[in-house]
């Protein structure tokens, strides 16, 4: 178990444009940390920097409390699953899995033992004697996983390790990886561009966009309190519905839809325009006594336990509502929807940042404080133990 810290890490391949611009994050020992973001945002680059396969252009990388900027990959005591993994084509599956284990001073018998254990977990036992080209892509991907797990390294880096597997297998292996990680207490840094995967396995996740950190936090916290419109639309099976509204006295106006503001008015302040956001599941059909808003249904997807309804909001924006149960609506018919005030999010139109209430700020501040307090306590306890050991 080791901590990985990135401080103001910058990276540029061509010395002109920054691929990473100042990444600041601390990954705690034993944590399952997920990096997520759209293609080309720099996820693989971060992993390669941590692994020592790329140099940083600026900033500091610390592994296990020690500066690691100039350590060789092998000195960092980690394992890695590459994106588009490549296996040694001339070695069997077993030889591929145990490749390099002799460096860790493991005897032949121990190597074999570990290889069998890992193969068992990943369902590769029957394929150990085969060459990579004689097994399916899915199995090859598992061999790549096995290679990383078998080393029992305290830090494990995985770059989209499940991208070649079918959905069902993905879910299964994902939970297996999670299990192994917890059992061995590895610090896992896991890259994916699938937000569902990110939400389900992560202790914490970091959302990146074009080389900049958007938000770091627990999955649910990020889901409930996205810091900006990018995070709001990236996280969630369906993106958050967004639309720009005009502030008119004490109400917000979106085309024909008028939202009377009550407590939100302080939040919005002196802004003339504001972005409204609503999660699809927070839109529901209006009851008889509620002042609903009529929309025209553009598409209906009935999915057993829920129904996804697409409709147009304003002139061009498509919104999605996720209604519980099965709704047999016809396309073109109108539906009266209702959104509770508490479910509305507001974003600044120019900065795209979410407008945060004072109460939330205070809560966040308390959270930060408690985090710092915990860190402080840990430090004190560590010192006390050390002092105790010295005394004895």
């Amino acid at each position, binding site marked *: 178990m080791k901590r990985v810290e990135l401080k103001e890490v910058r990276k540029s391949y061509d010395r002109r444009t920054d691929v990473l611009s100042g990444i600041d994050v601390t990954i705690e020992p034993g944590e399952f940390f997920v990096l997520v973001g759209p293609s080309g945002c720099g996820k693989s680059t971060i992993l390669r920097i941590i*692994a*020592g*396969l790329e140099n940083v252009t600026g900033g500091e990388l610390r592994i296990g409390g020690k500066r690691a900027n100039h350590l*060789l*990959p*092998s*000195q*960092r005591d*980690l*394992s*890695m699953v*590459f994106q*588009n*993994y*490549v296996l*040694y*084509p*001339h*070695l069997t599956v077993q030889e591929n899995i145990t*490749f*390099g*284990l*002799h*460096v860790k001073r493991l005897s032949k018998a121990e190597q074999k033992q570990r290889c069998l254990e890992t193969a068992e977990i990943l369902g590769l036992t029957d394929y150990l004697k085969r*060459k990579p*080209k004689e097994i399916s892509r899915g199995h090859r991907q598992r061999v790549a996983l096995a*290679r990383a797990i078998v*080393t029992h390294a305290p830090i494990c880096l995985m770059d989209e390790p499940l991208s070649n597997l079918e959905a069902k297998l993905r879910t299964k292996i994902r939970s297996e990886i999670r299990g192994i990680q917890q059992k061995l207490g590895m610090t896992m840094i896991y890259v994916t561009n699938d937000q569902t995967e990110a939400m389900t396995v992560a202790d914490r996740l970091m959302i990146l966009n074009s080389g900049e950190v958007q938000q770091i936090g627990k999955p649910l916290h990020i889901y409930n309190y996205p810091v900006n419109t990018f995070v709001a639309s990236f996280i969630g099976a369906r993106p958050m519905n967004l639309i720009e509204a005009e502030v008119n006295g004490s109400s917000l106006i979106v085309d024909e839809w008028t939202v009377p503001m009550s407590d939100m008015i302080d939040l919005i302040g002196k802004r003339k325009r504001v972005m409204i956001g609503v999660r699809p599941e927070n839109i529901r059909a209006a009851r008889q006594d509620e002042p609903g808003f009529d929309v025209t249904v553009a598409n209906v997807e009935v999915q057993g336990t829920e129904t996804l309804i697409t409709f147009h909001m304003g002139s061009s924006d498509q919104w999605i509502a996720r209604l519980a149960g099965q709704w047999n609506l016809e396309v073109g018919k109108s539906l009266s929807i209702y959104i509770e005030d508490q479910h509305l999010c507001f974003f600044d139109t120019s900065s795209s940042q979410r407008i945060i209430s004072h109460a939330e700020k205070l809560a966040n501040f308390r959270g930060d404080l408690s985090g710092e307090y915990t860190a402080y306590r840990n430090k004190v306890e560590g010192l006390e133990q050390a002092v105790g050991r010295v005394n004895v």
Partner: protein
Amino acid sequence: MYSLMKAGFLYLVPSFMLFTVFLFYKTVRTAYLSKYITDMQGTLATFVDIENFTYLFTSPAFLTSAKATVLFVLYTVPIGVILALCLALFANSKLRENRFFRKLFSSTIGMSVVASSVIWMFMYNPTIEVINYFLIAIGYSEIQWLLDPSTALIAVSIGSIWMNIGFCFFILLGGLQNIDSQLYESASIAGVSGAYKLRKIIIPMLLPTLFFVITVSFINAFQAFGQIEILTKDGPIESMTTFVDSIYKDTFINYNIGSESAILFFCIFIVTIAQFKFVARKLYY
């Protein structure tokens, strides 16, 4: 379906014809010629069955030229290929990733045998003495490289290695660059030593390329003629006469096509056996 197959065969005809004329006929004709003695005009005189072969294996001239050829191949092929591999590994390493070394090491490809032989002739030349100059500078006595029977073969081998190395380097570098860099990267994360990497990854993955380079080097060494002819002008003694050299002399100076064919047939036979042996081994993963 039938017409499609007919068309398919039609497409194969040119290649079959070329194959028949230039390979099949040649080999059969060589085998046929090897059983005859020829007169001074090169026409077939008498059928002698295997006498040409028995004559060959008892002829001291053939045996010395066989020895010279084998020595020449042994001096040039392994050293040449290993040197070329070292240069390719060096030029392919991340640190030296620049064009300079690649250009430098492969620069001999474009040179003709005659041109490079002339360069080496100057290097060894007793009156110009490029090499002897250095030898004397570091305190050795002068050597008559190309005249002394004990050094002539080595001198020619050094020149031949130099001529061949550019091509071997070029092909091996291509082979190295075909190995996915991820394999090196994951080996460097595992922390295995350079020698282990070479033994377990690079060499096995480079085997098809190495095989090709070795085969071509063998062929080149067996066919080495220009540089031997130019550098030694028949050589100090017969110790410098290799197969091709003796074939040349037998055919065009002594007009002895029969025994020449026997040598040629013998060579082709050996190389073919060697190739079958190699291909039978699992070279390709």
